[in-house]
């Protein structure tokens, strides 16, 4: 029998024996937590892979949708939160719609994304994670989101501009912005919603601030 002592959660190399290792020492704590928080019956999955077959971008994923569900059953929290899948999933709901057992796969992935966002684990797809964060910040600032201001704020985030220049997408995006501006589709400003104060208050309350 295989007797490795390494933690299966943190194992990075894909040693098949390592992967076969069973649930971590917290038992099915993680599975129960996810099922309790989402109301999704993860245990109902019988690995038919229909979700993965329905998914339009499974070839871009490091952990496929049906594997996500399996890993939740096994309690492999860190491996899940470190994955790129939880950030690139489009929430297109194909998986959920076609699962024969009504496992809400998209909701599980979205929930893992929220968990990752509030964990200490660095997101694998940083540019996407930062984008969501910037969007929310812009929303809280003015009640509505203007594309131009959003992109400006996004590019001023640490490392984003640098990374975009490095991988060559910056030039493309700048050209695109110019085209859209010429076509009258890029508005440089938008009216604020008068509700900003209310929204800011609600937002800080959700984060546990009293006033």
């Amino acid at each position: 029998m295989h007797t490795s002592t390494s933690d299966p959660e943190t194992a990075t190399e894909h040693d098949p024996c390592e992967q076969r290792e069973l649930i971590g020492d917290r038992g099915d704590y993680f599975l129960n937590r996810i099922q309790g928080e989402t109301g999704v019956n993860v245990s109902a999955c019988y690995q038919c892979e229909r979700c993965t077959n329905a998914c339009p971008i499974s070839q871009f994923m490091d952990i496929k949708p049906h594997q996500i569900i399996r890993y939740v059953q096994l309690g492999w929290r860190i491996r899940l939160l470190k994955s790129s899948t939880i950030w690139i999933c489009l929430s297109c709901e194909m998986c959920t719609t076609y699962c024969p057992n009504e496992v809400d796969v998209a909701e599980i992935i979205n929930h893992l994304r929220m968990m990752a966002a509030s964990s200490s684990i660095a997101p694998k797809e940083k540019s996407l994670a930062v984008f969501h964060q910037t969007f929310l910040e812009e929303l809280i600032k003015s009640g509505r989101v203007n594309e131009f201001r959003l992109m400006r704020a996004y590019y001023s985030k640490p490392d984003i501009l640098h990374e975009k220049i490095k991988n060559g997408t910056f030039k493309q995006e700048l050209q695109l912005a110019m085209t859209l501006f010429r076509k009258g589709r890029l508005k440089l400003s938008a009216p604020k919603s008068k509700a900003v104060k209310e929204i800011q208050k609600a937002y800080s309350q959700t984060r546990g601030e009293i006033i």
Partner: protein
Amino acid sequence: MKLSFYPGCSLEGMANDYCESIYAVFKTLGIDLVEIEDWSCCGATAAHSLSEIMSVILPARNLAAAEKMGLDIICPCSLCFNRLRFSQKMIKKKIFHIPWQVTGDIRVLDMTRFLAKPSIIQLIKQCILKPLDSLKVVCYYGCQMVRPPKITGYADYENPQTLDRISAAAGARVLDWSYKSTCCGASIGIGRREIVEFLSKRILQKSRQAGAEAIVVSCPLCQSNLDIVQKDRSDTPTPIFYVTELLRLSFKDKGNPKWFKMHVADPVPVLKAKGLL
């Protein structure tokens, strides 16, 4: 008839041409749209991805405002529609504290479903001056308008029909195809451009294989993805029309012809060739 209107942030920015065409079409149909006073963003993918409670209370604020007006909501953006419906469902479960007074009883309609009602189709037919019968189109619905059916209420989520019916009423030849509700990539292009290009190019290619000369959409994000991906093409572009733009063409109220110029995939060559301009 009077309805409250939730435009959403896109229709104030990138899709301002869409907004203009909606007002024009509803005016022709004689239906009053009252913009929800002081509406705010629905939270879109960001709130959905990062904070469950925000994804419920942000749309709830707009539901509350519409309830005060006592008018059903018409929502042209698929994502906003999905988020409003989701929030409504969560409000009814009464597990979150919502800082606004809201019951969730008001009806939230996606615009296409409203326009596809038999009575409205009749109304549309009466307004047609120049049927588009030489134009072959396919209708593209995307994800958020139809899925998940438990939220959107679409029973025919595999083969939705609302856009098909409206386009047919405008006299276009609506073709069948299998990519009606395959994802276009949404906002993933921000971090992973190759994914959005892979998905959008495939949809375009399939529409051409079906024989379509144009694609009809109702979601601002789908429109911009399918439109922008044609940026560097040299052959005849496939224009991506908002459904209300298509109606407008057949209503003969083309409005300010400036809206043609706002498309990246220029609709003029196709429309000229078809004698529709």
